[in-house]
């Protein structure tokens, strides 16, 4: 498939895989209800979503398919309560992933792994409000909530955690991509779905 244009079939495919990806993400994100895990979400989510995404990667052949996936993911997350910053991150990460995969003409397996890892960083956008608005947020928390909680969360969200979470998203993405590729080889390719 060498076509340069995104077809209606591609768009429907985005919708289908975005739906699966979103459901997996949503289920995994449930563990974020326990605050200690909240910071780890960036790391854990991409591991679980690697399986559907790496299958989706086998259907990607045109520039834009990953960017649109990012836009759709960002919008869908906004519709369940995320901020615009999530959308911005999802679009940028999608675009970067698209560029990475484009450099291998969408055929390279290792670039697909890298592309997914970069795309996975978008989940950081879900966390970002915690950082940008941190001070006023915790000030508010300190007033409204107990000091101890605010301090505990503050500890987990001090500046040095910031890049670590970002990198953890990337590493989670790499792990997810490898698991996804393993499952792809073990199941989907042999089942004739990929």
């Amino acid at each position, binding site marked *: 498939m060498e076509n340069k244009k995104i077809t209606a079939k591609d768009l429907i495919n985005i919708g289908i895989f975005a739906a699966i990806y979103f459901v997996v993400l949503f289920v995994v994100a449930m563990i974020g209800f326990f605050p200690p895990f909240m910071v780890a979400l960036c790391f854990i989510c991409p591991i679980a979503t690697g399986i559907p995404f790496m299958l989706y990667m086998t259907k990607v052949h045109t520039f834009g398919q990953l960017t649109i996936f990012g836009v759709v993911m960002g919008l869908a997350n906004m519709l369940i309560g995320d901020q615009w910053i999530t959308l911005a991150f999802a679009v940028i990460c999608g675009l970067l992933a698209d560029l990475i995969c484009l450099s291998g003409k969408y055929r390279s397996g290792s670039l697909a792994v890298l592309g997914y890892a970069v795309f996975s960083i978008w989940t950081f956008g879900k966390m970002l409000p915690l950082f940008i608005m941190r001070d006023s947020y915790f000030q508010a928390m300190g007033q409204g909530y107990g000091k101890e909680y605010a301090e505990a969360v503050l500890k987990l969200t001090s500046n040095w955690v910031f890049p670590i979470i970002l990198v953890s998203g990337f590493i989670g993405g790499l792990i997810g991509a490898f698991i996804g590729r393993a499952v792809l080889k073990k*199941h989907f390719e042999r089942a004739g779905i990929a």
Partner: protein
Amino acid sequence: MIRIENLSFYYKRGRSDAGVNNINLKINMGEVVLLCGESGCGKTTLTRLINGLVPHYYDGDIDGTVFTHGKNVQKSTLYELSRIVGSVFQNPRSQFYTVDTYSELAFGCENQGLPVDEIKKRVDETIYFMEIEHLMGRSIFDLSGGEKQKLACASVWAASPKVLVLDEPSANLDEKAIEDLRAVLEKCKSAGITIIIAEHRLYYLKGLVNRVLFMENGQITKEFDAKSFFEMKDSQRISFGLRTLTPPTLSFSESANESHSAVLSNFKFKYKHSEIGISVKKVCIYKGAITAITGHNGAGKTTLLRCLCGLEKTAEGELWLEDEVHKRKKRLKNCFLVMQDVGHQLFCESVLDEVMISMPNADKEKALALLKALDLEKFASDHPLSLSGGQKQRVAIACAVASERQVILFDEPTSGLDLRHMEAVSKVIERLAQSGKTVLVTTHDKEFIKACCHYVLHMKNGEVTANRILKEVEKV
């Protein structure tokens, strides 16, 4: 008019669908043509050539030309073809884009960009013409299979196509729904639409089709006019591997009832937020026999199976097997349900693993022997999901046998199967019964019931209304 010249098509590697080769065919305006032949003969591919899914959706190597109403299919886009050809597919679950009936009727017209008033007029006309007022205002998820196929035909009709292509539209329908489908097709025919139907179930098309094409190995090998086709002798029909040409009927015997060996008692279940449910007081069935459960869609057949094998947690009821009571938890361990969509119940990476994890004590030798008995040994290391529908079903049956469970339930095992595969399934099920299993099968397929079932339960509105004997269990 449809003209196909010297056409050959092979799917790209990785798709199991059968290609076609060297097809030459002319179909006139207003003709109704039936495509028949065994599974894998290429009839689905031929329908896809006419509606343009081949080569525009399914990739492959194509040679030759197809003209549908003067349009060269290869050179037109799917969008252009959609204005001429309407398509109805086998699986009613996956052909609706929206989720409510009105939008679905309007969908095709909307895609053509027609003015809203025009669309509304057409949709209203369609509702009237197709007599589907009762379907309006309902969610598509709540419709029965037959209602969905009717809606699929109607929504295609609303876009006013010149050609209608149907790929096994009756595969998931009960008898009543098939009659309805036929009525809808008659309406389309009387409106002068060219109709091409690929089907296994043939009897309901008698008097409707003008011409019958028989396909084998991707080629059209025989052509009949309707009259000589439907007058074909049974022996000849069977040699072609075709399903019955006359509506099948069952004749029940009145022979003395031997003592039953299993009893379902007081099964009661109601779905949440719904009036639908089942209520089965006392039904006697027989060990080592095959009992069919018949009844319309929505009569509660599948629900009864689900309750029987313990999947519905809130269901009341007990199963007695030779004076041993089975409550829900025990039934869950001792019944095996072969689901209609058998792909849902296969999990492993190879057929052999699939059978091994079913065994109480994994034993490779035994598993291989079992696969051999079911003609599956050459697939032992294949991925279960890569197999065809019939093979998947046999894998599930192998798991059922391997699990050493006593009661084996089947949900519509023969929907969409050709004669040969249907007979193969009934042989396998017969062997299960002979080995002493209690077998219950929900089915619409009277040919299949005739082939292997001993008893027939009829269900209506969630109750078992009749329990009749079809034939004696042969003593082995």
